[in-house]
């Protein structure tokens, strides 16, 4: 059938019209073969614009349309709906992106116009070869997986469970709680972190819709939106979770007492069998195989003898559990960066140079000093404390160290630390070296000003250049840019606001999820403004610092947003599949497996099939078979296929060639 194509050129206000002569584009494209209607309009996505498309489809009996407008990521779905409403197949719509790929990047109007015409021509050439496609349906597993059990993961899981869906949390540590459990007070209200976090931890632990896999890791992810298959490794903790009552007797009597306590960042020690902190969820002991005498050389067994519940099991092994999920939320969080490359601040040279997270533990009642601020080297009260901000943040790539981004939370927690120190120990001199104080947040600047004005914290605009440990003192040399002076301060304690970075597990997880990341290993959003909690990979959502640095209120808000997106997905019984998937011509397929090897979604399998050959014999041949429900239409297989058997609906080799021909014409 001869195609009857309509072309609609959008002005996008002046976004396009300022650098592209839109009426000239419409006129030129109107002369293309197959085009029976071409018109430009101010806002094609508006109701009036869409009505114009619908009317033209009916009036001119259009079989396909080309919209020259913004990126298909913005409005392809809009115009497909418009076409469907007017009675043509929604896959008979092509978008020529003359905004992001043309008007926004060109300054010269003649050039812009010429390019817009070329892009339009390519889209016309393609739409002439489009065939109507029908989207299939795929079922949805009504269960979600949250990876990471910090405040982001906990909040996401609670919100999903509240909506009535099953949700599992996988946490690599023996307890949920994450970084927030290590914090003392929270800005800007100064409520105690544990007081507001532990009730949520308990809720998560007791909620019958939530299952927590603590001390566990995700080891593989297969499937696709609505139908993920995930393998979770439950690491052997050598304690039967179902029997352990959390009484803590084993953790007190264990003879190995010198294990660096990671919960207190190594500033004190724990036993080889341990519960990370009093409010741990699940409140179950874990045996550290690197230190346990029984596990190392078969001698001891004290904990097993003591345990009234009979929960100790030295023979326990790692266990792989496979579950199905409809949606996955990444909530893998952050860590402070290593201070190795910033030793001008002497972190590795003096115990009294600490990071801000270590300072949190020193101020915390459950910390190594019972909440009394004592410096690590000699347990004396520090009388002069210097806080250094932006250590490793805002570094240029040229500097060869640190991170280029602002870590966002440091200005506020440093103000908090300075304020709390002055409140508890008014005889302490507190200096904060800052480059800028960044406090955009509700009641944030007021908080910072209070530290400076009411609590007498010395804020110094400048940076510390060098910290030299000298006897019991730390000689701090820095600049005061306002006074135009070099300051020399003999400090007792130096606190470094270390930049934060995504947890190291995020990168391998992203590979498993086929979710994209930026150069800093933060997960990228489907759209930085309009789809901030979704990954570009369907069914994968983002919560907390794995997407970028953020504080607790922002994390909780994002966690709720991710949960609502998950709920929105899980409340469907079926999802519409993408019909633009690969398919193989079985007669051309030579059985080489190239496609199977490149497919990132494991959508291609090979089958032995009986063929009736031209000479009337039958032959068993090995051919590729695409599972259209799993295929995401990336097209890798079509490129890998040496025999030209693999093709993509909606993006066939012929269509792409036609586009290229039209561009080169």
């Amino acid at each position, binding site marked *: 059938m001869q195609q009857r194509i309509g072309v609609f050129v959008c002005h996008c206000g002046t976004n396009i019209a300022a650098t592209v002569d839109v009426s000239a584009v419409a006129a030129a494209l109107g002369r293309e073969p197959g085009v029976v209607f071409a018109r430009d309009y101010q806002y094609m996505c508006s109701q009036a614009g869409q009505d114009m498309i619908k009317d033209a489809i009916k009036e001119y009996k259009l079989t396909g349309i080309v919209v020259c407008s913004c990126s298909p990521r913005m409005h392809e779905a809009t115009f497909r709906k418009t076409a469907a409403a007017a009675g043509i197949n929604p896959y008979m719509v092509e978008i020529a992106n003359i905004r992001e790929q043309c008007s926004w990047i060109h300054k010269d109007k003649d050039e812009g116009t010429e390019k817009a015409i070329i892009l339009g021509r390519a889209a016309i050439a393609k739409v002439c070869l489009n065939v109507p496609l029908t989207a299939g349906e795929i079922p949805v597993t009504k269960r979600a997986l949250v990876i990471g059990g910090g405040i982001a993961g906990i909040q996401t899981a609670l919100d999903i469970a509240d909506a009535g869906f099953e949700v599992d949390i996988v946490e690599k540590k023996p307890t949920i709680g994450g970084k927030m459990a290590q914090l003392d007070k929270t800005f800007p209200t100064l409520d105690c972190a544990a007081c507001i976090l532990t009730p949520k931890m308990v809720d998560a632990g007791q909620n019958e819709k939530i299952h927590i896999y603590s001390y566990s890791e995700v080891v593989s992810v297969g499937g696709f939106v609505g139908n993920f298959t995930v393998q979770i490794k439950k690491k052997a903790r050598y304690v039967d979770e179902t029997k352990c009552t959390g009484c803590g007797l084993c953790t007190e009597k264990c003879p190995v007492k010198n294990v660096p306590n990671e919960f207190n960042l190594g500033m004190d020690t724990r036993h080889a069998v341990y519960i990370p902190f009093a409010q741990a969820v699940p409140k179950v002991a874990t045996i550290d195989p690197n230190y346990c005498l029984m596990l190392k050389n078969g001698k001891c067994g004290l904990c097993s003898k003591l345990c009234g519940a009979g929960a100790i099991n030295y023979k326990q092994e790692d266990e792989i559990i496979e579950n199905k999920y409809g949606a996955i939320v990444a909530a893998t969080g952050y860590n402070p960066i290593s201070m190795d490359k910033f030793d001008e601040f002497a972190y590795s040279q003096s115990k009294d140079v600490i990071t801000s997270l270590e300072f949190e533990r020193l101020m915390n009642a459950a910390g190594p000093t019972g909440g009394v601020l004592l410096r690590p080297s000699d347990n004396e009260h520090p009388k002069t404390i210097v806080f250094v901000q932006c250590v490793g943040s805002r570094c*240029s790539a040229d500097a060869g160290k640190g991170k280029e981004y602002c870590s966002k939370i440091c200005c506020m927690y440093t103000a908090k630390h300075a304020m709390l120190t002055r409140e508890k120990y008014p005889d302490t001199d507190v200096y904060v070296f800052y480059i800028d104080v960044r406090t955009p947040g509700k009641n944030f600047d007021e908080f910072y000003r209070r530290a400076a004005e009411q609590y007498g914290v010395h804020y110094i605009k400048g940076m510390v250049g060098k910290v030299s440990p000298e006897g019991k003192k730390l000689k701090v040399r820095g600049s005061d840019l306002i006074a135009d002076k*070099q*300051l020399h301060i003999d400090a007792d304690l130096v606190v470094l606001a270390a930049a934060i970075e995504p947890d190291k597990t995020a990168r391998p997880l992203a590979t498993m999820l086929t979710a994209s990341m930026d150069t800093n290993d933060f997960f990228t959003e489907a759209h930085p403004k309009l789809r901030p909690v979704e990954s570009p990979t369907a069914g994968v959502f983002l919560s907390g610092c794995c997407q970028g640095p953020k504080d607790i209120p922002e994390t909780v808000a994002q966690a709720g947003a991710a949960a609502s997106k998950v709920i929105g997905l899980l409340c469907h019984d079926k999802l519409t599949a993408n019909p633009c998937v690969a398919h193989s011509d079985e007669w051309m397929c030579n059985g080489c497996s190239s496609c199977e090897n490149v497919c990132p979604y494991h959508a291609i399998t090979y089958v032995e099939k009986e063929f009736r050959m031209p000479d009337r014999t039958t032959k068993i041949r090995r051919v590729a078979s695409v599972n259209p429900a799993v295929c995401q239409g990336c097209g890798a297989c079509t490129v890998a296929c040496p025999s030209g058997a693999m093709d993509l609906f909606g993006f066939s080799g012929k269509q792409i060639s036609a586009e290229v021909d039209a561009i080169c014409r």
Partner: protein
Amino acid sequence: MKSKNELLRENIIRTSGADVKKCMKCGKCSGTCPSYDEMEYHPHQFVYMVETGDIEPLLNSESLYKCLTCFACVDRCPRGVQPAKVVEAVRLAAIRQQGKNRLTPDGVEKYLDDEIPQQAIVSAFRKYTK
């Protein structure tokens, strides 16, 4: 036509190979500089004044000869700006002018003693003399 000042600025940026626009004004260079108290203009000011083209005062300042080229500022700068190279480029712009040699073979004798290593003398000539 570019002004003399603009040409001077371009020349300093070119010979130093430093990108002064990268500076975020943290002052770490000046916080770590061992000659800070002897300088009228401090490392961060060299960077800023070259960025803004206010170079004349630097050319005439004794600060040019106080920088020890110890590279502490270069190593510690979080932005990779290399302030010491900026100072050196300004110093060269000054001493390359006719009659601006800071040190002369005749004048050096008064600084010498029996123990002074050759290294000190050749280094000083390289720093102070074209």
